[in-house]
């Protein structure tokens, strides 16, 4: 009997290895380590084959093995958390073995290598795929710019420096479906005329680094990555959030301090070692294979008017069912939290939600009807960012949370521009004072002014967005700052 257990680091964080070991001691049980489904609230999740497809046992403890097999498992396809999703980019999640080339197939790459690069650029532009790392820039336009830019060699870089606390979709791909990233990057290389690529992975993801390393080696052995077409290398980060900013990432990849560069020139024209470089987020690249197989029109038929395709949302914080939810743009924040997240855990009450990481705005209950798409979020004064959704309960001290966000920015600012370097430190000090109960109305006004200066004067999105959670926390929970 085949027993499927995830090898994902989150599943392992709650005991998947011990459960796998327990099944390993049972005769007739063949343990197969797959990627994670993304329904982390069910981990450790043990699945078996049935005549109606895979079925699973949630939250398994080693002591329940093998007795639990006598119970009726739940059909995966009938679990509402999965059945309500539209999975393309995460279609393999929980199904395949991360390093099996045979299971992955590389069909899109085979098709793409038979296509004229210009036709690939056409499909990419038709798809209206916007970068999933946070800036939402049209990927096809970026690719075309690099193709047309002067300078050789050209590079393709994947940004796997997924630093936004509350986000884990990149981690799931590099750990669970690494060939999808490789395939997306190789297609890009063919389209723009690059022969060399890098995957920049944050050091906090050791399991992802090792999976990606093995995947690249296997793909090279199988002739999928080859110096005649495209070669890939991994570069590991060293714990600097700012290196998720594309120009800081390139500096870091060159071995220097991760200091943000002034733009323009954009990396698409002058990137790594000043050569034309496509740098995209992991999820962006991972979406490419489906666009090649199904066509750009297919992708642009999903979603809202200006946000096309699906978005992997990552539920976290105080929520009953934390996990990855891939759905077309357009669903409301409330639907995501209620229908997929299952609402608040027992005994805790909703206070606020933050979308888009530590630079994302704090939304109160009144903004839960906001639809998940770039425009509506901007209209509501927020960002979608990389799709991390963190729910806070009524035990959260908003002033202390705001202090934390400015401490985070002060810790992580690269220091190149003054508004971010000095502004975050001063804002942190003011908020520390407010938390101690020494704040005045003047402090709040100063904080607001400082925030506007950071927004207008910072070089990159770190300083430019850092005031957002603080200003929105004050706007919606002002009472807590007047103590």
């Amino acid at each position: 009997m085949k027993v499927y257990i995830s090898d994902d680091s989150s599943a392992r964080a709650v005991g998947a290895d011990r459960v796998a070991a327990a099944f390993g001691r049972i005769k007739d049980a063949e343990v197969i380590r797959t990627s994670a489904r993304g329904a982390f609230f069910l981990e450790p999740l043990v699945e078996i084959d049935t005549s109606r497809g895979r079925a699973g046992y949630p939250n398994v403890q080693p002591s329940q093995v093998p007795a639990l097999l006598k119970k009726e498992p739940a059909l995966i396809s009938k679990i509402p958390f999965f059945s309500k999703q539209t999975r393309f980019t995460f279609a393999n999640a929980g199904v395949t073995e991360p390093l099996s080339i045979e299971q992955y197939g590389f069909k899109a790459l085979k098709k793409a290598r038979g296509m004229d690069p210009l036709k690939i650029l056409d499909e990419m532009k038709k798809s209206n795929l916007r970068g999933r790392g946070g800036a939402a820039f049209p990927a096809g336009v970026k690719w075309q710019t690099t193709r047309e830019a002067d300078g050789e060699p050209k590079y393709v870089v994947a940004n796997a420096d997924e630093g936004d606390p509350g986000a884990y979709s990149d981690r799931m791909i590099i750990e669970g479906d690494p060939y999808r990233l490789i395939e997306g990057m190789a297609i890009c290389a063919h389209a723009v005329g690059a022969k060399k690529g890098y995957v920049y992975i944050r050091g906090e993801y050791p399991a992802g680094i090792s999976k990606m390393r093995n995947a690249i080696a296997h793909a090279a052995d199988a002739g999928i990555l080859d110096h005649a077409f495209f070669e890939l290398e991994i570069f590991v980060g060293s714990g600097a959030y700012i290196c998720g900013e594309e120009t800081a990432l390139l500096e870091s990849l060159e071995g220097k301090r991760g200091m943000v560069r002034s733009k323009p020139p954009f990396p698409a024209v002058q990137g790594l070692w000043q050569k034309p470089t496509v740098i995209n987020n992991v999820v962006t690249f991972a979406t490419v294979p489906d666009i090649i197989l199904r066509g750009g029109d297919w992708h642009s038929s999903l979603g809202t008017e200006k946000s096309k395709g699906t978005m992997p949302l990552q539920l976290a914080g105080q929520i009953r069912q934390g996990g990855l939810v891939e759905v077309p743009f357009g669903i409301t924040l409330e639907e995501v939290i209620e229908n997929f997240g299952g609402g608040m855990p027992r005994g805790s009450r909703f206070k606020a939600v933050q979308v888009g990481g530590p630079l994302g705005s704090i939304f109160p209950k009144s903004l839960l009807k906001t639809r998940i798409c770039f425009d509506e979020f901007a209209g509501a004064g927020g960002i979608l960012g990389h799709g991390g959704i963190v729910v806070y309960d009524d035990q959260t001290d908003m002033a202390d949370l705001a202090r934390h966000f400015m401490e985070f920015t002060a810790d992580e600012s690269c220091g190149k521009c003054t508004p971010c370097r000095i502004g975050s430190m001063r804002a942190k000090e003011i908020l520390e004072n407010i938390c101690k109960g020494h704040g005045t109305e003047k402090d709040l006004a100063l904080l607001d002014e400082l925030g506007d200066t950071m927004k207008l004067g910072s070089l990159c999105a770190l300083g430019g967005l850092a005031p957002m959670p603080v200003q929105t926390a004050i706007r919606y929970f002002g009472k807590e700052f007047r103590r």
Partner: protein
Amino acid sequence: MLDVATVLQQHKSSPPNILATLQKIQEAIGYVPRGKIPEIAAALGVTDSDVAGVLSFYHDLRTHPPGRHILRFCLGDSCLATHCEKSLAVLEEKLGCKLSGVSRDKRFTLEKVYCLGNCALSPSLMIDDKVHGRFTPKNVATILRDYR
């Protein structure tokens, strides 16, 4: 155990990559001694300040010997939302050190980290390369048992 000179010998690259070199040194001996900056700079053909600048920029690069295990406690948004501070206080008490310190028995270096990507199962911490999640102030200390 490898020394700095051997690492520098083994990992020559062109153009020189300061960050990758410092990572290799830390991998080999656990930290990057500040006193070795001139030797590293000379081997790479860059200035002392180039090396010092990279060394001070990255949170993960250490200039002092760490404990036997690196315990990175997550203070990311999701972990704060699940009130991880209470568990951190328990660990600090148990280890006898604060964040950025080394435990009394030199078993652990306690560091903060902003996100381990385990947000759906917060709160989270990582010891060496293994992530642990969904702990409470009551059971967080039991995680330490497996590390000698």
